[in-house]
């Protein structure tokens, strides 16, 4: 029998569950009402009206598997409180409704627990301790706690499916299953499309093409994979093809009318770009640059939903798309040439980085898309850990503005600091030395970077309101996202170096 590592995954899950249940009465965002509305829609309307219903402004805009998932949850919901299933009862939130919806988040997260357990089990003998620590770090992630158990979403469940698919890809016998699971995941939430290039290249190279020569095409495997994906897609979209509603479904899934930056800025390149633009507004008269007066207006009002730039050129969706794909391609080429599991996870992470940093209308919550796959390989050696560290700090700090109510402030800060101290120290002990030399400067940078976080959080949460009161509310948000953007970009550059030099 193998040695058990402590604390075990179930032990962590048990204690975390206690905290999550106690969080039930905490602040919940409009996402709670969004999901309640979807429960009501899927429960009380026939399937063909699901993607047309618009009584609530929170229309169904996730792919069909998620709608089926909501339908399944709504079956149980009627025993908790039938009131939550009425489409017309907007913002219905009885205690039973809250308890029920919150409880479903905790229960469906068991998928994540199981996937992490498989991940720790399936790791090679020499890396068991590291994998165990990484698994626990994901399980206890402050990101999931903040987004799922306070803000309200089902990311634990969805990332559980993602990790399941990544773990399945470890063995060549699991490649087909991995592809199927990932296809299913896409039919739950299409944000995972960002990771699809890595899956496409990896499955193409390892499953559809021969191991020795790429010209040795394995037709049987191609057919199996293709058929499976068609079946999965058919299960999801079939009914809507039958009702001829596909354009309407796609319209809901991909609303391109939204702005470049989300209402809260995701800490990506565009946040730095806007920050530069805002600084340039004041510098423009000296530099003799033309300033777009109407854009200045929107800037000073602190409106960030629909971003137009005053000095710098505006950004089109096409530009973001080209940038995203362009930054993904080098890693994809490396994966194609050296298709192993490590390169696959690393490329998945890099795809997530590229989409997060350059994507159109990125949510700050999407940072989990980077953090979670990266966590799986962050303990490979000390160089990886060096690149992971600023991401761990920046990614989680950037989620702070999601919770702006007073009671939740100590929770997000204390829990995140707890996690950072615990896991950064543990990772530091566990990560083995790298065969390649480290970059001294980069380590210094990450130490300095982490140190800045403390005064920044203090300013944004307390100092700003003491100095300015309710004025310039966008300023703390801008600082946090710019700060976080620096960290995410730095960790991206660091990881690119690590990936292409190892």
């Amino acid at each position: 029998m193998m040695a058990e590592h402590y604390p075990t995954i179930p032990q962590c899950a048990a204690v975390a569950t206690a905290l999550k249940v106690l969080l039930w009465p905490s602040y919940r965002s409009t996402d709670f009402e969004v999901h309640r509305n979807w429960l009501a829609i899927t429960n009380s309307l026939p399937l063909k009206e699901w993607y047309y219903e618009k009584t609530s402004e929170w229309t169904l805009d996730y792919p069909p598997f998620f709608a089926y998932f909501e339908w399944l949850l709504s079956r149980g919901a009627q025993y908790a409180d039938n009131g939550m299933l009425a489409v017309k009862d907007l913002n219905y939130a009885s205690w039973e409704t809250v308890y029920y919806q919150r409880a479903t988040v905790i229960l469906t997260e068991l998928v994540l627990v199981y996937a992490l357990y498989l991940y720790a089990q399936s790791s090679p003998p020499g890396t068991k301790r590291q994998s165990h620590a990484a698994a626990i770090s994901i399980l206890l992630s402050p990101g999931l706690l903040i987004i799922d158990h306070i803000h309200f979403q089902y990311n634990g469940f969805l990332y559980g499916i993602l990790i399941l698919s990544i773990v399945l890809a470890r063995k060549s016998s699991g490649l087909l299953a991995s592809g199927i699971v990932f296809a299913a995941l896409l039919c739950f939430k299409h944000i995972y499309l960002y990771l699809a290039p890595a899956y496409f290249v990896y499955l193409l190279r390892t499953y559809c093409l021969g191991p020795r020569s790429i010209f040795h095409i394995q037709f049987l495997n191609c057919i199996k994979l293709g058929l499976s994906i068609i079946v999965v897609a058919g299960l999801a979209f079939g009914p809507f093809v039958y009702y001829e509603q596909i354009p309407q479904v796609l319209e809901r899934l991909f609303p391109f009318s939204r702005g470049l930056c989300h209402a809260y800025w995701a800490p990506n390149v565009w946040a730095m770009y806007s920050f530069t633009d805002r600084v340039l507004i004041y510098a423009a008269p000296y530099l003799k640059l033309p300033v777009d007066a109407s854009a200045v207006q929107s800037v000073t009002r602190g409106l960030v939903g629909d971003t137009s730039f005053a000095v710098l050129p505006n950004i089109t969706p096409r530009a973001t798309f080209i940038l995203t794909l362009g930054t993904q391609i080098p890693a994809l080429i490396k994966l194609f040439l050296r298709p192993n599991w490590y390169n696959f996870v690393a490329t998945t992470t890099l795809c997530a980085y590229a989409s997060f940093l350059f994507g159109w209308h990125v949510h700050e919550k999407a940072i989990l898309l980077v953090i979670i796959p990266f966590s799986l390989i962050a303990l490979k050696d000390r160089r990886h850990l060096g690149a992971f560290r600023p991401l761990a700090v920046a990614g989680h700090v950037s989620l702070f503005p999601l919770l702006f109510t007073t009671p939740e402030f100590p929770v997000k800060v204390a829990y995140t600091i707890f996690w950072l101290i615990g896991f950064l120290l543990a990772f530091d002990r566990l990560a083995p030395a790298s065969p390649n030399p480290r970059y001294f400067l980069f380590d210094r940078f990450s130490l300095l970077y982490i140190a800045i976080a403390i005064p920044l959080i203090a300013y944004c949460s307390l100092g700003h309101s003491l100095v300015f009161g309710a004025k310039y509310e966008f300023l703390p948000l801008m600082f946090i996202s710019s700060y976080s953007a620096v960290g995410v970009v730095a960790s991206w550059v660091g990881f690119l170096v690590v990936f292409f030099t190892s």
Partner: protein
Amino acid sequence: MPPHTPGSYRPRKKRTASELASASSNGTVSLDLPTKREKPAFPLAAFFWPIKGTPVSQWVVLSMILMAVGLFRWVTGFWQYSGYQTPPMHGDFEAQRHWMELTVHLPVTHWYFHDLQWWGLDYPPLTAYHSWILGMLGTYIQPDWFALYLSRRSDDEGLKVFMRATVIVSELAVFIPAAILCIRQLARLHNINSWESAIALTAFLMQPATILIDHGHFQYNTVMLGFQLASLASMLAGRRLWSCVFFVSALGFKQMALFYAPAVAAYLAGSCIFPRIDIARFIGMAIITVASFAALFLPLLLGTAFDVYRGIPLPADAQAPPLLPAIPFEIPETAWYQPYVVQLLQAIHRIFPFARGLFEDKVANIWCAVHASGIHKLTVYDSTTLSRASLVLTLAAITPPCAILFFRPRANLIPLAFAATAWAFFLCGFQVHEKNVLLPLLPMTLLLGTSEGMKPAIRAWVGYANLLGCFTMFPLLTRDGLRIPYAVLTLLWAYLLALPPFSLSAYAPSASEGGPHWFSKVAHLSSFIVMLGWHAVVAFVEPPKDKPDLWVVANVMLGAAGFGLCYLWCLWRLVGESGLLSVFERKAKQVEKKRQ
């Protein structure tokens, strides 16, 4: 190097890596028989496993522990508090808020007289000063929360956050440092390594009963309990004068600290006589105690002086304190000292409600169990008889532990003797609330930090007392709307310490292997089964129409019986540890020989 001053300077004990890695002394580690590997004996130890034997800074460990226990406290505060939107009287939350309101706005002479029908101040002066400070702070943030008269029954969300934060801050200021010190002193006394003592500290701070009452129901018990802990820590460290100061502070914050008074007195008095008579020590402690009491009442008297100087009369509806006629000499209305005497007497009158009944509501002590179960209705006696009976029975029950502590004033007996004394008060005392179970639980839970404290025999009893204590507060917590936090925190603690209903591991070893006595096993396991059954019944079955309190009575009966066992167990262990009886003495010697 700091200059070496004899007397006050103590070299700090350096903890070496070899000591950190030393074998378990108090039961956090067990051996996995098939593989011969060490493994954590219960889940809480598993969470400390990664730092076992590693040179992680104690400060990092401590700050992580505090963040974790702080998080559980804060999120418990998200739930309702006592009296939330329940007219007419609301509850303890309104009482505490009201005291802040009245201390902030009224002259000091009115504090103990103001509108006694609406949560009149009936705690000792330290609570009043504490309320004043918090009230000033709160008024600075939002004056509406404490506006005189207008703020009554306020259920503002911001107010709730503020009040919850004051509980945490008060606890951080008093209870937490005291708990850290106390567990450290115990570790030094019993030679326990810092890793195990960190586990004991976490278990102690996660005690569900304290969290539920202070952060759920809403009270400031941890301030009083914290002073008491500081007093215990001072005793363990041999700093008797400080222990007097802290005990007076505990008493000055909440009169319930009287539960401990006989044990404090027995230990301190005993330490002046045994092993040799030390008059100077006794006089020193007497002076410090009197001075502490004087300091406690000084702000009240200074405030009175100020009000006399300003010529502020007492409120119109103020009645002279009933204790005034009891004074053997006449006090003229015009005497200069009359206002001070009135204030002191009124404070004492308010603090000690002699006129109230023997017990309030349903509490798991002897009186309520005898009365409510119908064995013997106590309403046939008048209150004087009952209070005398209560006094006699309490005295009888506290005499054995206090006598032992008096004749053998040794530091290692302190937790057991204090627990036994407090149990005696809880079971036999006058005017006991269900929440007072926190008092005996405090020293009893400290046992986890003593030698062999987390081995099955003691862990089972500490766990039993705590879980039963929470169980008896279930009716109260249900009224407060705290059923879910009750379930979560109680089950979490039971899980972390591997207690029923999650694990029977504490009951597996036989008595000779360090497990509990067979009688304890039977008593505990049957109690746990009854507790689980009781919860099932309460959840699904309505009580009979003519006996609406039947379930509560059953709860009280089980609680009283179980607490009685806890008292007896503490006493029995105390007798054993003290080595007073020659039988035990011989046994102790044998054990000692074995150890050597």
